[in-house]
C-alpha cells in the first residue's frame, strides 16, 4: 500500500474544499452580477427608448433614411432608429443599420446578433423608436464584473495554499516530533519518550507508547535475566555433578562394571551440559536479545571465540583465522548474541569438518566472514533445511541440530545474513557459511593500509 502524508492530505483536502467553495461563490456572484447588470442596462435602454419615442412623436420628419450625426460615437454607443408605420427607417444614428433592427416591430426587448434592442410602446404618432445597445458593450460589462469576482480568488489561491500548508505543518509539528521519537525506538532503544510539549490529543498516544515500551523492556529484561539465572542455576550443579563423577571415576577402576557406569554417567553429564548450553542459547536467540544495537568489534569476538574453541575442541586441525590485514570490524548489534551466532557456526564447522583439517575463518575485505570446513557435500534439499531447528546434515552425526537454527535466528534479528554453501569447489566437497553484517566499519592494520 502506498504511504501518504497526513499533512499533504489535510492541506490538499482543505485547499480543495476552499477552492470549490470559492469557485461556487464566485459563480453565484458572477451570475447575480450579470443579472443585475442586464437589468440595469435594460432599464436604461428602455428609459432612453421611451424618452426618445416621446420626443420623436412631436417632431416633423424629412425624407427617408436620414442619418442623424452624433459626435463621439464608438462601438459601445447606443444606436437608434425611427421607423414609420410601414417599417421604413426614417431617421437613425450613424452607428445604426440601414434596415430596421428587427423585421417585426413589437414592443419590448429583442436580441439580435449585434444589438439588444428595445422597442418602445407606440404613441399617437406614426413613428416607432428602436434603441439598440451593442452586444459587445453588454458582454464586456458582464465579463468585467465576472472577472472582478473571480480573478482575485485565482490570484489569492496560491497564497491561501501556502498559508494553509504553513498552518497545517505548524500544527502537525508535535506529531512529527512524536513520530521521530517513536521511529527511533525499537532497535535496542526502549527508553520512554520524553516530554515533547504535545497537544492533549497526542499526550494519550505518548502515554500509551511509553507504557508499551516499559512493558516490552520489562519483558525482554525478564527473559534475559531468566536466561542468565537459568545459566547460573543449571551450569553450577552440572559442573559439580561432572566434577564429582570424574573424581568418582578416579577411585573406581575403569575396567570394572562400576567404572563403566561411572564413565556412562560422566558422558551423559557432558552431553547434558552441551544440551543445556544449546537450549540456553536458543532461549536467548528467541528472547529478542539480538534486537539491541551497540557498536562493537566483531573481530575481537571472533578472536576470543576462535582462541577458546581452538584449544578446547580439537587435538588436530583447529581453527585458522585469516584476518587479511584487517584489525577491526565495527558493527552495530548485540555482542552476546553475535557471540552465540559465531560460536554456533564455528562449533558446527569443527563438529562436522574433517578431524585432520583446519576450519578456515577468513575475513573478506568488505567485512564479510567466511567459515569453511572440509566435509562431503550436502544435498541441496538438506542444505535448504539446515537452518530449521533439529535438522542435521547427515543422519547419525553428533550435535543438537540447533546450532545453525540459532545462528540464523540471531542473524535475522540483527539484519545480518548467514548464507550456507555446499559444495565449495569443483571437488564436490566442503561446507561454508558466509556472514554479512549491515554496514560494517572495516579498519585495516596500519602496516597493511
Amino acid at each position, binding site marked *: 500500500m502506498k504511504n501518504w502524508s497526513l499533512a499533504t492530505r489535510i492541506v490538499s483536502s482543505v485547499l480543495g474544499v476552499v477552492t470549490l467553495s470559492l469557485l461556487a461563490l464566485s459563480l453565484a456572484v458572477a451570475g447575480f452580477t450579470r443579472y443585475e447588470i442586464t437589468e440595469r442596462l435594460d432599464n436604461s435602454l428602455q428609459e432612453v427608448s421611451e424618452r426618445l419615442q416621446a420626443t420623436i412623436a412631436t417632431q416633423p420628419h424629412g425624407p427617408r433614411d436620414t442619418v442623424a450625426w452624433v459626435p463621439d460615437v464608438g462601438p459601445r454607443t447606443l444606436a437608434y432608429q425611427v421607423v414609420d408605420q410601414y417599417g421604413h427607417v426614417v431617421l437613425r444614428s450613424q452607428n445604426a443599420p440601414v434596415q430596421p433592427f428587427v423585421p417585426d416591430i413589437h414592443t419590448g426587448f429583442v436580441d439580435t446578433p449585434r444589438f439588444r434592442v428595445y422597442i418602445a410602446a407606440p404613441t399617437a404618432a406614426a413613428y416607432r423608436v428602436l434603441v439598440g445597445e451593442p452586444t459587445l458593450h453588454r458582454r464586456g460589462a458582464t465579463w468585467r464584473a465576472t472577472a472582478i469576482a473571480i480573478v482575485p480568488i485565482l490570484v489569492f489561491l496560491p497564497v491561501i495554499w501556502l498559508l494553509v500548508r504553513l498552518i497545517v505543518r505548524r500544527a502537525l509539528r508535535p506529531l512529527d516530533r512524536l513520530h521521530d521519537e517513536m521511529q527511533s525506538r525499537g532497535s535496542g532503544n526502549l527508553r520512554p519518550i520524553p516530554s515533547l510539549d504535545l497537544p492533549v490529543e497526542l499526550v494519550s498516544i505518548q502515554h500509551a507508547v511509553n507504557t508499551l515500551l516499559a512493558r516490552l523492556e520489562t519483558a525482554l529484561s525478564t527473559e534475559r535475566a531468566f536466561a*542468565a539465572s537459568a*545459566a*547460573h542455576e*543449571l*551450569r*553450577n*550443579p*552440572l*559442573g*559439580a*555433578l*561432572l*566434577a*564429582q563423577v*570424574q*573424581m568418582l571415576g*578416579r577411585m573406581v577402576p575403569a575396567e570394572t562394571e562400576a567404572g563403566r557406569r561411572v564413565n556412562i554417567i560422566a558422558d551423559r*553429564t*557432558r552431553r547434558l*551440559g552441551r544440551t543445556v*548450553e544449546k537450549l*540456553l542459547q536458543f532461549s536467548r536467540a528467541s528472547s529478542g536479545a539480538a534486537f539491541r544495537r551497540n557498536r562493537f568489534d566483531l573481530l*575481537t*569476538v571472533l578472536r*576470543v*571465540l576462535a582462541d*577458546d574453541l581452538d*584449544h*578446547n575442541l580439537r587435538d588436530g586441525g583447529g581453527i585458522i583465522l585469516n584476518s587479511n590485514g584487517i584489525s577491526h570490524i565495527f558493527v552495530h548489534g548485540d*555482542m*552476546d548474541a*553475535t*557471540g*552465540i551466532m559465531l*560460536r554456533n557456526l564455528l562449533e558446527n564447522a569443527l563438529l562436522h569438518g574433517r578431524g585432520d583439517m583446519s576450519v578456515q575463518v577468513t575475513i573478506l575485505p568488505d567485512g564479510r566472514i567466511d567459515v569453511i570446513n572440509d566435509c562431503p557435500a550436502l544435498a541441496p534439499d538438506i542444505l535448504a533445511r539446515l537452518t530449521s531447528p533439529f535438522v542435521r546434515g547427515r543422519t547419525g552425526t553428533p550435535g543438537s541440530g540447533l546450532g545453525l537454527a540459532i545462528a540464523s535466528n540471531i542473524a535475522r534479528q540483527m539484519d545480518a545474513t548467514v548464507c550456507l554453501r555446499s559444495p565449495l569447489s569443483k571437488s564436490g566437497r566442503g561446507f561454508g557459511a558466509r556472514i554479512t553484517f549491515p554496514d560494517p566499519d572495516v579498519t585495516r592494520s596500519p602496516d597493511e593500509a
Partner: protein
Amino acid sequence: MRILIVEDEHDLGAAVQEHVRLDGHAVDWFTTLEDARAAMATVDYDFMLLDLGLPDGSGRDLLRDIRRTSSNIAILITTAEDQISDRIAGLSDGADDYIVKPYDLNELVARISAVARRYAAPRRRVCYRIGEIAIDRENRSVSCDGRALDLTAREWAIMELLSRSPGRIYSRQQIDTALYALDQDVDSNTVEVFISRLRKKVGNKIIRTVRGRGYCLADGEAA
C-alpha cells in the same frame, strides 16, 4: 604450584581441589572473596581459579584489585557466566584464561598447565640440565641420562620450585608454602624428608643445602 581456588559451589570446589591436588599442586580453597583476600595476604600464590558469582561480591572485583598490584599470579576464571561479553570483560580485566562451567577436570588441569607455561616461558628456563640430570618444566619430568625418573607429585613440586630460578636459594618456609595447602598439617622435618628422597633419585649433588638459608639447584645450563 601453590594454587588458590575461589569457588562457592561446595561439591564443585571440593572436587576441583582434590583433582588439582592430585596433579601435584598445593591447593587452598575458599568460598568467599573475604577469605580469598585474607589467604592472599599471607600466602604467595602462583595460580588462582576464580569464580565470578560469589556470595559476598563479584570475583571480577578481586581480579581487578590483584591486577592493580604488582602481583604476578596467574588467574583462570571458572564461571557459569557464559556470554561473550563476560568472557571479554574477564580477559580485559586481566584474567589469563576463562572456562565456563560445566567443565571437564582434565581440561581444567590442561588449561592450568597452559597458562602456567605462558607465565614460565618468558622468565624461566623451560629445560635445565645439571650434568646427566635434565629437568623439563614443560613436560613436568626429570630424566637421568635420558632415562625418565619417577617423581611423586610432592617431589616434582619441590623440583619445579627450585628449577624456576636455578641457583636461587629457597627457604624451608617457601618450600613448605609450595608443598602444602593451608588446611594440611605439616611436620617440622617434612621438607628435609622430601629433599632426601629427591636426592636419592637425582643424586646428592643436584640439590645443594645452603646452611641456615635453604636449598638451591646446583649450577647447570639451559637446554
